[in-house]
């Protein structure tokens, strides 16, 4: 790490705090690009071993070799937050990335979804994941790779099937259904009883009975299996719990991707613009990187079938700040997720300006532009965010 980057980073932070960005301290680390790639693939610096990550790794490696993707940073929320920067990037690039990371750090501390998940994992997901990895490593030693892998296969297959509306640490279902109480005699129930048809006689037993499992449909399959699957050994349950915890951690990252990347991009652009301590030519190089990152994919072609989330998020945040001021923007970053963010803030005018269109593709590969209607656009952008594109159980 060069002297220059360190001093830029300190001054960028000062600038950020003056603007009201509020974040836990961040540990920056410059790492080799191979290491960056692994972190990006695993989603966490140290994570359980599994062949499926190997597949992702190869995808990433191919993309990387073909020059289709470039990793600038990986940030982990927490207290302290952790940010990994590619060591082979230029000073200008990493200056930009540092500013970008500050945006992420602010988002992670203040967005309510992030806050909730961070509170649940105790602001220590990086350490927790490393513990899981170690546990699973020990399980492999004790029970052999085949057995552990079978459990991991099952658990990771159900990765998306969690219920984030429930707490990470949930109480078990009540074991018994209590006896049905006779209707109380408050005014509401009296009036209810007076309705034509009368009350049905209560045939429920008056003593308590064992409750069904699950008592009502359950969406959190990982939890249900970990707690209630018959004939699982404790270490197997622990694997389900580990996968579930990591899945809880990933949910806000997934649910706020457009907002979060947009917010970080907004702030790296703004901080750099105001960083008068940067020499002219370095600023120019850094801002060139910015335009690479938030560039619409359609730049070179007539039309692109993918929307760059950095670009979309960045544009929406700019329009929010322009129209409603920074205060409102801070409030939105605290309260929204991608669903409300897109629905409330992607206006028809902005969509037209960004030249967004909705298209359909048929099974034979034909692609046709459908419309520019803002409601249809919003819902189509959000469609892949419902339940990780999985059926809801």
């Amino acid at each position: 790490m060069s002297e220059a980057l360190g001093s830029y980073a300190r001054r960028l932070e000062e600038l950020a705090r003056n603007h009201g960005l509020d974040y836990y301290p961040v540990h920056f680390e410059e790492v080799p690009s191979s290491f960056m790639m692994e972190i990006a693939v695993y989603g966490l610096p140290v994570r359980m071993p599994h062949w499926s990550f190997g597949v992702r790794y190869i995808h990433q490696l191919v993309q990387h070799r073909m020059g289709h993707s470039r990793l600038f940073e990986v940030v982990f929320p927490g207290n302290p937050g952790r940010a990994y920067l590619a060591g082979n990037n230029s000073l200008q690039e990493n200056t930009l990335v540092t500013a970008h990371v500050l945006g992420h750090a602010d988002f992670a501390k203040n967005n309510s979804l992030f806050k909730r998940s961070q509170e649940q994992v105790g602001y220590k997901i990086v350490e927790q994941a490393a513990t899981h990895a170690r546990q699973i490593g020990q399980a492999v030693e004790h029970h052999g790779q085949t057995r552990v892998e079978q459990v991991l296969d099952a658990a990771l297959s159900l990765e998306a099937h969690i219920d984030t509306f429930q707490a990470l640490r949930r109480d078990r279902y009540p074991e018994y259904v209590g006896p049905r109480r006779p209707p109380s005699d408050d005014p509401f129930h009296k009036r209810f009883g007076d309705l034509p048809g009368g009350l049905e006689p209560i045939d429920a037993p008056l003593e308590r009975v064992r409750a069904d499992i699950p008592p009502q449909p359950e969406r959190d399959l990982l939890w249900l299996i970990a707690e209630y699957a018959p004939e699982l050994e404790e270490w197997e349950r622990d694997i389900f719990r580990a996968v579930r915890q990591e899945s809880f951690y990933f949910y806000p990252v997934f649910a706020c991707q457009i907002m979060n990347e947009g917010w970080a991009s907004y702030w790296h652009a703004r901080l750099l613009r105001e960083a008068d301590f940067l020499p002219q030519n370095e600023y120019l190089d850094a801002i060139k990187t910015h335009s690479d990152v938030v560039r619409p994919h359609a730049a070179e072609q007539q039309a692109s079938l993918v929307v760059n989330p950095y670009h979309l998020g960045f544009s929406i945040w700019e329009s929010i700040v322009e129209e409603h001021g920074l205060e409102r923007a801070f409030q939105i970053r605290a309260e929204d997720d991608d669903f409300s963010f897109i629905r409330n803030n992607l206006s028809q005018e902005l969509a037209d300006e960004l030249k967004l269109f909705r298209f359909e593709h048929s099974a034979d590969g034909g692609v046709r532009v459908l419309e520019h209607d803002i409601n249809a656009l919003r819902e189509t952008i959000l469609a892949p965010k419902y339940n990780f594109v999985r059926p809801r159980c």
Partner: protein
Amino acid sequence: MEPRSSDFIERPGEDRHWYDLFSRGARDWLRHNDKVRSAVREKLPELIAGSDVLPRADSTVQVPVRFLEHSRFRLRDTGEGAGVGQGDGKPGDVLASPADGEPGKGAGGNDEGGYQFVLELKIDDIVDWLWEELKLPNLKAKSGAMRQDDYTREGWSRRGVRSRLDRRRSLKEAIKRRATQEDAPAFTDDDLRYRQLAMRQRPATEAVVFFAMDVSSSMTERDRLLAKTFFFWVVQGLRRQYTHIEPVFVAHTIEAWEFAETEFFQVSGSGGTVASSAFKKITDIAAQRYDPGRFNIYVFYASDGANFRHDRESAQAALAELGEIVNYIGYVETASAAQQALSSETSMLFEQLEAEIGVAGRYGLSTPESVWDAIRGFFSQQSQVEV
């Protein structure tokens, strides 16, 4: 909370190797490949039986496979869908016509794209696996009853050519001599020892395999493929028993010709079937080029079983003659499953031969899977009938 500031973690120069300790991606990728490999291995007989092109023995087979995926609950995939794009586009514009489009790409974002990768398997490994899968006996390296003369290394001599100088041995001699002499020179010419060669008889480890096939019009493409698959794996098996194997290919209709391997499986003739022509041809070739005293001779004959009735006598005679020089003679009948297997004219000829010389066998090939039964049959028999 005490105010803390962000900082850069520095790992000093040498510590940067710390990062090299991480190769989880590669590790998990290898694990994935192991899994694919063993899945392929379990399906191997079917995969290979179904393939159109047989590999060369010294090469590798490439099996295209897909990446493994998690099993998961998923929404119905109709290949259709909608997405949001960016750029100039008016409602009704066609951005990709059905012909040049890449189906399934672009929309939804949940598609990994159809990456495939190619698994390369060594023929040698495949043979190992097959032996395990088919529960075939371990074959011992074979030395036929036949003898062949060859030079072998034997003993040392004081004279010889430089290239056969045995340095270790020479040095030993020098040390012995110096132990008994005073002021001895380091080396003298008398110390030098040369390896000596002697002409000795050794068991024959060479084999010739004759593949004969009926290419008359009644043999279909499928029949040939079955025969070819069988032939190929027989050679792979025999390769484990002999240091050197030479295949010879003979095709016949009413006449017989020798072919190169590449042409052999493409040849198709017309007309009838006179099996005796092939048997005679093989006997001729063996007499000219493969001295039964030096070579172990194997003959495999593939046919659909139909042979001209009037050829019966001469085929019988030719087979009997051939039976005297071979280690083994096998007959594979490529009859469709509907036909009664091994009840044909040709089959009867071999049945007689089997009764006479003992080292003959018959196998019915009706489906790609039955190739493995035939191979298992052949090699099980081989392990019992030790020559």
